[in-house]
C-alpha cells in the first residue's frame, strides 16, 4: 500500500491556459469539489430522495514569496489583479512527485492575501474557483 506525504504534491499553472509550469515555493494546496443535490422526493414519500446536480470546485494555494518575476509563479500571484479574466487559466494540482496523479481544471483566481509578519516567512494565499470540467486523474 502506498502512502503519500504533503511535500510530494505540487502545483502547476498557466495564465494563458496552454502549458502549465510549476509554481515555485508552493507550501500547500487544497481543493474542495462540491456537487449540488436536487431534492426529488415524491409527495407522500417516507424517505427523502436526491439526485446530483451541478459540480463546482474551489480551493487555496499557499506560496512562499520569493520575488520571482517573468514566470508563471509571478503570474499566479498577480493574476487576481488582472482585468477581463475569462476563466481560461490552467490549474494542475499534483498529489505525487512523479507527476501522474493530478487534478486538472480551468479556473479563476478570486482572491490573494499578501502579508508580512515579523519573524516569519512571507506567505501569499491564493483562492480560486473552477471554471468548467474538473478532471480527476488520481
Amino acid at each position: 500500500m502506498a502512502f503519500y506525504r504533503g511535500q510530494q504534491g505540487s502545483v502547476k499553472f498557466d495564465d494563458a491556459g496552454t502549458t502549465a509550469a510549476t509554481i515555485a515555493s508552493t507550501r500547500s494546496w487544497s481543493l474542495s469539489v462540491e456537487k449540488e443535490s436536487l431534492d426529488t422526493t415524491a409527495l407522500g414519500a417516507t424517505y427523502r430522495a436526491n439526485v446530483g446536480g451541478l459540480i463546482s470546485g474551489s480551493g487555496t494555494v499557499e506560496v512562499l514569496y520569493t520575488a520571482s518575476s517573468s514566470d508563471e509563479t509571478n503570474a499566479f500571484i498577480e493574476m487576481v489583479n488582472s482585468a477581463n479574466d475569462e476563466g481560461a487559466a490552467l490549474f494542475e494540482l499534483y498529489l505525487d512527485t512523479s507527476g501522474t496523479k493530478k487534478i486538472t481544471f480551468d479556473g479563476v483566481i478570486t482572491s490573494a492575501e499578501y502579508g508580512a509578519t515579523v519573524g516569519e516567512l512571507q506567505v501569499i494565499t491564493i483562492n480560486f474557483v473552477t471554471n468548467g470540467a474538473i478532471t480527476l486523474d488520481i
Partner: protein
Amino acid sequence: MAAVNLNTIRATVEGRLATELALAPPVPVVFHNQPYTPTPGSSWVQCLVSFGGNNYLTMGGTTGSSNSVIGVVVCNIYTAKGNGPGANYTISKRIRDLYNRVIVSGVHFDPPTGPEVVAAPAPEGYFQTQVRMTFETFEDL
C-alpha cells in the same frame, strides 16, 4: 542550488566574529573542538555554532524544493573575576551588535539573547556571561 554546505554557514558565523574580535581592543576567540589555555585574569570568548531542527519549507522532492535549516550561536564571554561586569558587557555588546537581525550570505540572525550571567563559570576563575543567537538559512535542492 544544492544541499546546504554546513561549513560555509559555520565559516560565515565564525569568520564574522573572528574579524570583529581581532579589532582593537583584540579579544582571543576559540571555536568548537579547538584547544585553548586561557591566561588567568584575561578576557576571551568561546564561540559554539550548532545546527538544530530542519523543516520542510516547500513542496517537492529531492530537487526543486526548499528546506529551512535552523542553528544557534552560543558565545561564552569570559572576563576577569572580581572587577564587575563592565568589561564583560563591553565585549558582549560587540558580539550582540555583530549579529543582531543581520542577514549575511543568506543566513538570517534573530535578535540575540543575553548577555546572561553564568552562575557557575566553566572554567572557574572568570566572570562568565553568555550571548545566544538563533539563525535560519534556506536550503534549495
